[in-house]
């Protein structure tokens, strides 16, 4: 009785296995070349691994077939086919290069976007300041990263693994990161984009020009605490000077900015040349009165405004400092103001572009008092103030390198964008069919077996089961 049951089981399972193998082989044939009327359709479906050469034989045979068909059509006096690619996933780097070559050879090539991938664009910016955060913004070619049912999340990774994921990102997703490895990757469904993170530690130094005194000492201390490398020379006597750091000739290759703190003799021509070449200059306190720097100033400096007694211990501590009244010129930009005793606010930080650089004016005298005589937060506020002034003077952020510099092939940082660049935008009808949906591609993860292999395994299993059934029958004497 049990042998009968075993034999029936083997027959049933073998039948199911053969049926499944047939379905699989039919599906696998989707990666192939078919002829529509006037359209040679090449389907490169989702059986491709991301960085493999799979798909190349399909493309090669399609090109051969296209060439022979075109010759026949030419003999018959008809026009040639259009080569239509139906891409089930974003092709690998070599395949994109091959597609680009096919298009460049003059073959009319269009592609249907069945990848379900979105064109992603990511930009990274980082202020040129020590320890500055990394600002990352991501947008799609289709505009909106919307939280829809079945929508894949936007996943942010670096070399250490997943950093964050968003399921409802809005029009543009943005992250502010404290730190990350050299390269960031954003994935949305099948689309990926990689961007290199600019290194903010490659900051140039600051040069402080000041007389010996508490202001110079504590401004240098605040900037060093904020992470800047500071050079300076303070003349103590006609023959003696104290050097801070290792001051060298003023050059934009070495220095990001120069901070002038006192009314003192400075080489105005050198400073002007430095700013014109892209350097930053901060004129603080009495430096606004240096006659030779009038061409760099942001406005007219009139009278010294007195400090308000006790204000250093309030929430507006800068009112407790003496400051020059500053009337900005029309081309100057007031970055920060303080509440004033008059009807108008007092400019506290004024910027002006000079050549390729910026000059910042700060009217306060003896800001060290803010640090020593202020509240418990005074020290941190003083440090942040000077750090902010220097960053404002430097202005520009570090140049952003989009697309991975560590990639072996150009364009592999943003493969979808590279595909569009090489073979043009996808055909519009298929875009409409897709409706912007995103399918998760298990193949892209590269952790399972190609579909046809399952077919062979199933056929082998069916054969073994039939042999077992036949053996069982023979052993019990039946035919």
């Amino acid at each position, binding site marked *: 009785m049990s042998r009968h049951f075993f034999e029936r089981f083997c027959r049933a399972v073998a039948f199911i296995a053969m049926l499944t193998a047939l379905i699989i082989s039919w599906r696998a044939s989707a990666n192939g070349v078919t002829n529509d009327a006037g359209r040679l359709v090449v389907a490169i479906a989702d059986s491709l691994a991301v960085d493999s050469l799979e798909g190349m034989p399909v493309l090669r045979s399609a090109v051969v077939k296209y060439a022979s068909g075109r010759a026949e059509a030419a003999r018959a006096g008809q026009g040639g086919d259009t080569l239509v690619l139906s891409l089930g996933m974003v092709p690998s780097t070599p395949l994109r290069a091959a597609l680009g070559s096919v298009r460049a050879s003059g073959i009319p090539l269009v592609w249907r976007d069945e990848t379900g991938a979105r064109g992603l664009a990511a930009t990274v910016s980082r202020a040129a300041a020590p320890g500055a955060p990394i600002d990352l913004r991501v947008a799609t070619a289709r505009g909106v990263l919307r939280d829809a049912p079945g929508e894949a999340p936007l996943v942010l990774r670096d070399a250490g693994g997943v950093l964050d994921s968003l399921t409802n990102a809005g029009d543009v997703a943005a992250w502010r990161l404290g730190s990350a490895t050299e390269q960031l990757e954003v994935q949305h469904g099948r689309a990926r984009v990689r961007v290199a993170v600019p290194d903010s530690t490659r900051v140039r130094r600051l040069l402080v020009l000041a*007389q*010996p*005194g508490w202001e110079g000492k504590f401004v240098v*201390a605040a900037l060093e605490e904020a992470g800047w490398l500071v050079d300076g020379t303070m003349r*103590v006597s006609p023959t003696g000077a*104290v050097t801070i750091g290792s001051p060298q000739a003023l050059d934009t290759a070495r220095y990001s900015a120069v901070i002038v703190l006192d009314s003192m003799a400075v080489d105005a021509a050198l400073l002007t040349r430095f700013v014109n070449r892209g350097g930053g200059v901060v004129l603080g306190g009495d430096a606004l009165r240096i006659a030779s720097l009038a061409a760099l100033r942001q406005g007219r400096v009139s009278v010294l405004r007195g400090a308000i007694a006790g204000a250093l211990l309030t929430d507006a501590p800068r009112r407790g400092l003496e400051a020059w009244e500053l009337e900005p010129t029309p081309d100057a930009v007031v970055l920060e103001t303080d509440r004033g005793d008059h009807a108008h606010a007092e400019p506290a930080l004024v910027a002006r572009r000079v050549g390729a650089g910026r000059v910042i004016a700060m009217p306060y005298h003896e800001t060290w008092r803010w640090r020593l*005589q202020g509240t418990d937060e*005074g020290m941190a506020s003083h440090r942040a103030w000077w750090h902010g002034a220097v960053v404002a003077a430097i202005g520009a952020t570090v140049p952003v390198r989009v697309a991975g510099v560590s990639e072996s092939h150009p364009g592999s940082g943003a493969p979808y964008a590279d595909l569009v660049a090489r073979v043009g935008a996808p055909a519009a009808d298929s875009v409409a069919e897709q409706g912007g949906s995103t399918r998760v591609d298990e193949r892209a993860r590269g952790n399972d077996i190609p579909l046809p292999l399952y077919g062979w395994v199933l056929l082998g299993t069916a054969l073994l089961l039939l042999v077992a059934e036949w053996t069982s029958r023979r052993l019990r004497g039946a035919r």
Partner: protein
Amino acid sequence: MSAPFVFATAQYESGDWDSAPMVPANIIDSVARYTQLPVRPQGVIVPLSSDATWQYPLLYLTGHLPVRFTARETEVLRKYLDRGGLLFIDDHNHDVDGAFNKTAREEIRRVIGPLVPLPNTHELYRCFFVFDNGPPTTSHEMNGWGDNLVHEQLDAVVKDGRIRVLFSNKDYSSEWSFHPDNKRFLSVDNTRFGVNLVVYALTR
């Protein structure tokens, strides 16, 4: 032109804070004599319990007797040092077993942390005058009083690369406590290290 430097002597409730009254005038004289730093001709005396302490980023403190800071003095001094002030303490007894040395070190440990030896190659010793062997020896160290030792190094509390507390057992308070006019009788001015101290405080 930056504001003139003001030499400030710390006044504390315990002990004899005013044991070396001629030191300020002598250091002020030397700073004016050797440098072009603007300096106020008179020093000030600042109670350590007062908020006025924060107006003077360099403070000089000396005495012979035990030092015990009050709660208010401790609070003010801690904030003063945290915010970047520099406190120069000189043991007027030049005695490592003396009451001032022991109690002042305990108090500094309690306020900001332990004192550690300052290397004799520190920039303090070369920021204006150059002292190749570290702190200059005083004529009082071997005068039969105190511990009768030549103290090879000064001690300090250093934070963020800057000296916050400088502690001396060399008795500069005795060495520098004379009328500035009498410098003309010295072959080498023994207050030169005081100039280095002021220059260091104003620039680092």
